[in-house]
């Protein structure tokens, strides 16, 4: 199924479905022409994808686009539908309805699978075979020259244990062998499902560095994760999934929104007076008042000047009890979007 010119309008954005406490995502829905190899081409197109298990809708009219060459974070809590979506993209699960296209081909077809390296959940290999022999088997499966095995094992730093049985590997080594298997075909598209699961902090850092490196080689990486820090560190763009639907999409900066200043003054009346005093301060875009606190947001293209704000308030005779910068962490955004609770002012 060839890709056609498509605008990325199918996935719901924050503008379309406002969430409390979250600013609209900007710059994520720009039209993208889906030329198979050209700039801006789409590696993955998903439109209205749905998977129903009896009365449970695991994936609900999900739409998203992943551009070629980007590292796309697929962020969502456990059970949100991430793995089900990946399994549908790989042809392991038949969708109930919807449309998918990977690198211009239908999911699950041999032509498509030849171009995708994947690791879904915990990597599965034959426990009685060594890491090397497991990759040898997969190389024969995919028609890849066995000479690549050494290279991919070295890439994930598993060369020294390559001849040990898989069952003797630690969880981290199993994860790395999973990545090695995904790289065996030298695929232009990688799908990694929670690749740092069970790794110690050093292992997680190594894995993220590896993914970043793979992404910088021009590969497209779809990284599924429930770890905000991981997505924040590694991904160019993020799609947040909750209850089977994309609830927000954009760069990490887009999702976090603009930086703001928090000013605490003496009571609501003073806060209202302070808002009036700040009405014409250059760079100030909006002032929200909640009890004794003002939240001041600036224009996107100019930084807020805390000193200027403080000066104006003092000139207006308003005592400033506290003044600090405030920017929502991705975790706040994530919890807000996925219904996991909201924490303000962190």
């Amino acid at each position, binding site marked *: 199924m060839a890709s056609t010119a498509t605008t990325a309008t199918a996935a719901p954005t924050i503008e379309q479905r406002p969430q409390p406490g979250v600013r609209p995502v900007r710059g994520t829905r720009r039209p993208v022409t889906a030329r198979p190899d050209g700039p801006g081409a789409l590696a993955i197109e998903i439109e209205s994808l749905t998977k129903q298990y009896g009365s449970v809708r695991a994936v609900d009219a999900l739409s998203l686009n992943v551009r070629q060459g980007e590292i796309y974070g697929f962020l969502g809590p456990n059970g949100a539908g991430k793995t089900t979506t990946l399994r549908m993209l790989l042809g392991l699960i038949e969708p109930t309805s919807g449309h998918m296209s990977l690198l211009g081909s239908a999911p699950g077809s041999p032509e498509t699978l030849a171009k995708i390296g994947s690791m879904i959940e915990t990597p599965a290999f*034959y426990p009685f075979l060594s890491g090397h022999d497991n990759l040898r088997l997969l190389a024969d*499966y995919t028609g890849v020259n066995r000479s690549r095995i050494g290279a991919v094992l070295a890439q994930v730093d598993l060369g020294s244990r390559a001849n040990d049985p898989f069952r003797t590997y630690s969880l981290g080594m199993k994860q790395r062998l999973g990545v090695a298997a995904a790289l065996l075909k030298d695929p232009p598209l990688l799908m990694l499902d929670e690749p740092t699961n069970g790794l110690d902090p050093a292992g997680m850092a190594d894995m993220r560095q590896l993914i970043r490196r793979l992404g910088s080689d021009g590969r497209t990486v779809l990284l599924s994760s429930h770890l905000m820090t991981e997505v924040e560190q590694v991904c160019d763009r993020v799609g947040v999934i909750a209850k089977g639907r994309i609830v927000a999409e954009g760069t990490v900066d887009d999702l976090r929104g603009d930086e703001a200043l928090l000013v605490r003054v003496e009571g609501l009346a003073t806060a209202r007076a302070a808002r009036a005093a700040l009405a014409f301060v250059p760079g100030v875009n909006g002032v929200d008042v909640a009890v004794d606190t003002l939240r001041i947001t600036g224009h996107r293209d100019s930084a807020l000047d805390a000193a200027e704000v403080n000066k104006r308030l003092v000139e207006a005779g308003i005592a400033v009890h506290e003044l600090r910068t405030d920017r929502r962490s991705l975790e706040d955004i994530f919890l807000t979007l996925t219904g996991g609770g909201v924490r303000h002012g962190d």
Partner: protein
Amino acid sequence: MATDFLGLLKAELFLLRKRTSTWSILSIWLVVTTIFAYGFPYISYRSGSSQFAESFDSMLPGALVQTMLEGMPFYGGSLVLILGVLSIGSEFGWGMWKTLLTQRPGRSAVFGAKMTALGIVLVPFVALAFVAGAMASVTIALLEDAAITWPGGQSLVEALMAGWLILAVWASLGVILAMATRGTALAIGVGIIWGLAFEGIVSAFISGIGALDWLVDVLLRANGYSLVRAISGNGPMSADGPGAFSGPYVSGVQAVITLGAYLALFLAGSWLLLKRRDVA
């Protein structure tokens, strides 16, 4: 395309070669078939038991075809059923389907390669059983100063083919049970009970019901033994001892057709299950 399939087949043969279970089942099969076909009967014969005294000739090389084939529809079938179950069911247990089916080949090609590899592995199962039987029978002939005569070449080839068909049907029964139950334990349990007990019980029960007589003729056991009997020259079969079968028999042609139909049915059913099901 053919090169791709050869790569797949190579991978599957490599896997079966590396699996301990393949070698364990082969070893058990060779030991069991030699002991049941030659060991116990000879010990019994030497100890003066009347049970095997009349069947001394069946322990000599001239009776190799019938003696070796008689074990195949019984314990041979049960053992390769386990091989069939493990070849598919273990993939569920280890979560390997998601790894294998996200490489490049489609599900049909993967299944085809797995079944072809399993079919190839059954060849040494049959051939080595005959080699073991030949060695045992020659040993007995030498010990008893009996003449050593061998079955004809054509008879041996037919026996090897018949043995392969019988074992292939049982292995494919294991495959479909594993595919249906998505595992190994239940599949082996159901398969063994079916092979060792259920068919016998069904046969005994419905043989008294005229309208259901035809059912006996389509049971795996009846057709396996009927093929053995036809290949062995329609002579008398062992009516006692482990796995003994006393009929009713169908013709050799009917047995081949029925067993071939079972093989096709089990494989097609397994393929459909793999093709249509989600891999969760």
